[in-house]
């Protein structure tokens, strides 16, 4: 059989196409904005910064591209990849097409953890913001799963528990912000909570890129284990999967990725829900290809959503969470009705 070699060439072709798409998205992300900057200037800036190519450029343009737009586009990509991966993992392990870190309250928990550290000073300076967010994310998921187990075994129990969890943690966040922050802090935080990429710099890339990359590698390492969950946990166990360990590792990684991204850009909804479904339509259900495809699709989607958020209202920046929700909420409705039609 020559399918092995055929699929190899097909696969490397797909990887190449995905990388080209990603580069084009990053390129556009750096070029489009309040002042459009020609694509060749973007390329020259990158060449100057990475390889000291020495093209003579307007320092202002170069500054905008390198310090503002490109760092922002890269963080958007990492964030989209991380949320897409989290969505795949949660949907597969919980066997629920509607699972995603936002709906299950993990993002809300991460927000609460982040503001507890940033505003209340929980941890007395020993805890950093991402660690606070991670603790909040794990706490939220723990509470939501406990509630779901208590509520019974139906597939919708975890979604309803997630709704309750999100409400609780969002209320806690608002409470902390209202009680402890001054007016200016509060305004900034409220904007951040809706998902906001302005103010993102290269330091944030240093945080988000390693987390997204490590997350992708850990998930890929477990790709066959995730496949084995197709027919449920018992079936996975009978195929030799150490179910509990896989749960702890992968839910932990999803919570970590979500928490780090929430710490940088706030909680952005629906990406983790929609991206895995889109990727499944493109490449199928096998996790060996679904995981990288979701990471890539998520990255490109977030860069594009960020571009749209910057140009849709002239002179104003819309929180990116608004854009993802405008795309995601109808997609949620579609998945919901499709699921019913097949059941």
């Amino acid at each position: 059989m020559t399918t092995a070699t055929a699929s190899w060439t097909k696969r490397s072709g797909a990887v190449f196409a995905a990388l080209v798409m990603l580069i084009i998205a990053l390129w556009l992300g750096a070029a489009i904005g309040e002042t459009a900057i020609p694509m060749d200037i973007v390329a020259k800036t990158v060449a100057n910064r990475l390889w000291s190519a020495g093209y003579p450029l307007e320092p202002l343009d170069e500054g905008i591209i390198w310090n503002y737009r490109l760092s922002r586009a890269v963080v958007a990509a990492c964030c989209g990849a991380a949320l897409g991966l989290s969505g795949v993992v949660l949907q597969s392990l919980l066997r629920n097409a509607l699972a995603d870190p936002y709906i299950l309250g993990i993002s809300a928990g991460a927000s609460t953890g982040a503001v507890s550290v940033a505003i209340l000073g929980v941890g007395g300076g020993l805890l950093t913001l991402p660690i606070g967010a991670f603790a909040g994310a794990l706490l939220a998921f723990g509470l939501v799963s406990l509630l779901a187990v208590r509520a019974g075994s139906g597939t919708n129990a975890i979604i309803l528990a997630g709704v309750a969890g999100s409400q609780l943690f969002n209320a806690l966040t608002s409470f902390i912000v209202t009680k402890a922050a001054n007016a200016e802090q509060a305004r900034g935080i409220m904007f951040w909570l809706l998902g906001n990429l302005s103010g993102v710099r290269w330091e944030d890339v240093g945080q988000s890129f390693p987390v997204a990359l490590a997350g992708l590698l850990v998930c890929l390492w477990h790709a066959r284990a995730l496949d084995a969950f197709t027919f449920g946990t018992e079936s996975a166990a009978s195929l030799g999967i150490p179910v509990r360990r896989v749960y702890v590792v992968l839910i932990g990684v999803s919570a970590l990725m979500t928490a780090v991204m929430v710490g940088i850009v706030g909680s952005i909804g629906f990406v983790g829900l929609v991206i895995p479904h889109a990727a499944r339509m493109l490449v199928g259900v096998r996790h060996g290809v679904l995981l990288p495809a979701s990471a890539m699709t998520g990255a490109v989607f977030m860069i594009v959503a960020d571009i749209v958020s910057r140009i849709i209202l002239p002179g104003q920046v819309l929180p990116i969470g608004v854009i993802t929700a405008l795309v995601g909420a109808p997609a949620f409705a579609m998945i919901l009705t499709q699921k019913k039609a097949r059941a």
Partner: protein
Amino acid sequence: MTISARNISWSIGGQTIVNDVSFDIVPGEFFGIIGPNGSGKTTLISLISGLRKPRNGHVNLFGEPMASLAKRQISQRIALVEQHAETTERITARQAVELGRTPHLGALTPWSQADDAIVDAALREVKMSTFAHRLWYTLSGGERQRLHIARALAQQPEILILDEPTNHLDVGHQLGLLELVRQQRDLTVIAALHDLSHAAMFCDRVAIMHGGRLVVLGPPAEVLTTKVITDVFGVSAEIERGDDGELQIRYRRPKPHRPQLQLVQSV
């Protein structure tokens, strides 16, 4: 011995589900576990397949304590087909069977041509080769269950454990599926069944469970008696032995329920 259970028990919430059960499975036999609903068949299946650890007693797999083996080692020797394993994923029939290779593949082992050949053979074995590219949700219950058997065969196990595999099938598919399993050479089969006629037809030995205990164990012709059927299942039955030695079990309709209160007088 392939699997030996020694005095195994399992309980939950103060209720004993499996109570002090022991048996040895002979290589190559078709071993049936029968009993009424709630008699502990499914729990017993999960204990001997290594999914649950017994609270008391132990299970040995080819002479080694099951508790000392990694999940993966167990799954290379035992394949399990559950009662009703379903998915809403858009997987194809072939992809479902490919999952059977999981215990033999590490995280970095690439899928090989040998794996392809094993999956093809398993699909042929259950006569589903022409359905390989059909999506799971378009298949009937009987086809899905045959694919689960193919998935289990792709695991290349020495022991195949089935938990009421024919539960949701019509009679033709029930017999067809059990015959398919029966025909597998060099495979030890352990099956929880609730149909006594099936047990009589296909099993070399049957173990009868009642209230968590193993009450009788032996060849169907010896252990399936009217007394056992009445004691365990609470129904009266007649058993006939055909010329070919096949058991025919015929049940009698339960006596109609008499109302406790009766009219004292009607004029």
